[in-house]
């Protein structure tokens, strides 16, 4: 924390920094969605028949579903026929085989975003899969990971190279018919990341996917599947940005995590999609289904998210605690400023005996924003000895924003222990004045107070990203007070 103070003033004077557009030729489908769209995507990716069938089944099911309306968010109806479901930067001939064949404009884009993909400039200790619109453009450190037996590649490559793993695990945590957006994703998903860590392997480096939406009028529908076999462990991080545009763009992803006996998966998100401008124009609709299943004994899945972007966020990273003694964790900071709306939280489903879950949610609202925590702790009759601890805190800045907390608790085993703590506070005028009276500027004071509020979550992030998250927060809350 102490090293960032001098940079703060420059940081605070910046607006959304990732709003540029890369001028690159793309192959895009015209807007519209029907079975031929689904078939086109599958054919384009030369997928095996089982996957096309799977997609079409999902699509037909989607047609029977209606967009959910229970979230505390408002937006005009989405015209699903006005979205382009596939956009890929044009490549001469086949897909690039190595990073040297990747279009320099793409490399420059990631460079500008602070994610160098070049061999010489790579982030030390972090392997990156870069997803640009609908496709993965590069994955770094593949060879090094392969030596450890870890598979880390784009979803498309996984379908081609490891179809048996895909067929075995895809849709087993989030079934295609799970919900409206998951069904849509299952039908039209275009790329994403795949991770497989074999039994007993501790992944030697941090894995990370960087999602970038570039093309206009497209949606991004990626899919991430992470499998940690018996005794394996992996830490994975995703980051996201998009250009500033006046129209809303849809991002409907699905993430599935599977942890077998004694496996550990740590999944961190720093979400910074374009949030729209200060009048609420534009921004990404981030409607995402994320779920992990502790399938084996003593497995552990931990979600950490820092959500600062998107016009609307609708996501509930959840844990299904099937294996006896398994552990689920959810640490979240959700920031909503200006006209942003966030409805986020988690579900912890206790099925196995002595399963344990922890939820720490910190919501920050400023401007006219609405920030909702929605969580479910469910203890099934089989979950003897289950324990949950939930802490939900909301911080309000100014008087035009709102915070809601909806903690649902369903306990069907008398032996379970469920604890809940909640608080709502305004950024205290008293706290602010105290800092001002000590000579600290209003901006620095707000940053300090907010960082303090989020400390319990930030300490869960991998080191390299904790600093980034903190910086993001100060940019997101610019002008919120004073």
């Amino acid at each position: 924390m102490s090293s960032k103070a001098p940079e703060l003033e420059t940081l605070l004077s910046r607006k959304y920094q990732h709003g540029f557009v890369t001028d690159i030729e793309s192959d895009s489908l015209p807007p519209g969605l029907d079975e031929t769209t689904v078939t086109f995507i599958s054919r384009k990716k030369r997928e095996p028949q089982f996957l096309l069938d799977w997609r079409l089944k999902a699509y037909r099911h989607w047609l029977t579903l209606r967009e959910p309306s229970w979230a505390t968010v408002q937006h005009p109806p989405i015209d699903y026929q006005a979205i382009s479901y596939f956009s890929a930067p044009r490549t001469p001939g086949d897909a690039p085989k190595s990073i040297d064949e990747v279009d320099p404009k793409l490399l420059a884009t990631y460079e500008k975003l602070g994610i160098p993909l070049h061999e010489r400039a790579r982030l030390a200790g972090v392997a990156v899969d870069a997803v640009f619109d609908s496709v993965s453009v590069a994955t770094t450190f593949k060879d090094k990971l392969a030596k450890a037996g870890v598979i880390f590649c784009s979803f498309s490559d996984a379908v081609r190279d490891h179809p048996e793993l895909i067929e075995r695990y895809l849709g087993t945590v989030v079934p295609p018919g799970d919900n409206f957006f998951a069904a849509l994703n299952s039908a039209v998903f275009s790329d994403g990341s795949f991770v497989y860590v074999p039994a007993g392997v501790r992944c030697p480096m941090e894995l990370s996917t960087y999602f970038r939406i570039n093309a206009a009028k497209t949606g991004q529908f990626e899919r991430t599947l992470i499998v940690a076999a018996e005794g394996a462990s992996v830490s994975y991080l995703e980051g996201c940005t998009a250009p500033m545009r006046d129209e809303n763009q849809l991002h409907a992803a699905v993430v599935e995590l599977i942890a077998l006996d004694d496996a550990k998966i740590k999944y961190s998100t720093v979400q910074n999609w374009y949030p729209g401008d200060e009048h609420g124009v534009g921004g990404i609709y981030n409607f995402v289904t994320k779920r992990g299943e502790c399938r084996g004994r003593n497995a552990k899945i931990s979600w950490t998210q820092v959500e600062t972007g998107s016009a609307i966020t609708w996501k509930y990273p959840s844990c299904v605690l099937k294996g006896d003694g398994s552990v689920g964790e959810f640490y979240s900071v959700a920031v909503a400023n200006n006209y942003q709306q966030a409805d986020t939280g988690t579900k912890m489903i206790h099925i196995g005996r002595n399963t344990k879950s922890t939820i720490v949610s910190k919501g920050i609202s400023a401007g006219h924003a609405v920030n909702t925590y929605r969580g479910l702790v469910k203890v099934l009759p089989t979950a003897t000895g289950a324990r949950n601890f939930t802490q939900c805190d909301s911080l309000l800045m100014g008087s035009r924003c709102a915070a809601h907390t909806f903690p649902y608790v369903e306990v069907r085993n008398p032996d379970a222990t469920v604890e809940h703590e909640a608080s709502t506070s305004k950024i205290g005028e008293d706290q602010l004045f105290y800092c001002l009276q000590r000579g600290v500027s209003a901006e620095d004071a707000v940053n300090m107070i907010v960082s303090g509020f989020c400390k319990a979550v930030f300490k869960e992030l991998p080191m390299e990203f904790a600093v980034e998250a903190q910086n993001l927060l100060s940019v997101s809350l610019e002008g919120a007070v004073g």
Partner: protein
Amino acid sequence: MLKISQLRANVAGRNILKGVDLEVRAGEVHAIMGPNGSGKSTLAQVLAGREDYEITGGSVTFDGADLLAMPAEERARAGLFLGFQYPVEIPGVNNAYLLKAALNAKRKKAGLAEVDAYEFLGLIKAKMKFMGMDESFLSRGVNEGFSGGEKKRNEILQMLVLEPKLALLDETDSGLDIDALKVVAKGVNSLRGADRSIVLVTHYQRLLGYVEPDRVHVFADGRILKSGDKTLALELEARGYDWLREGRVA
């Protein structure tokens, strides 16, 4: 150092300060005493620059500058310190971190180089030792879970690190046991000097037994009713405040 003339202020439309006159010269220690609700704390908050108060008249100069024209943080950087009656908790924000930021804001204003973490640690540890504070304090959140006495001690520690020209201590003595009171008094006395002024707001005389004031003022109904030397405090202790107010009516 500080010159207040006919200062008037409202809180939520209610007139609280009704024409305060006070002059504090460099090197002096003043005590402002008075019953609860007389406006003493309001005066301290107004001087520190709290925005909830509406100034309706009068003027205040601090070191020759128009104090009321300065925002709160500028007043602090110029050397005005308020020891709060109820220091607020700021969870998760490290005590040492806030204090270092405060010190550096002030040094920057004065054109001095910022202190680094190492220098700062040396400085604060010495002051903590002087105030008899435990080192665990460094890693705790600002006033987070502090007892009343610890909070007050923390205010004095901050004052010693920031070395203000003018310290306003708002009921710093209230809620302290005798040992804590002595420590606080020791801190305040150590700050006394020819180029500094201290204003103690209190309604008991007991702190004044340890910090001897040059001037004592009685504050009632939004203004200073009577001023005198330290014997006035003793007289107030013996006779209460009512005789003064009755005297005014008569």
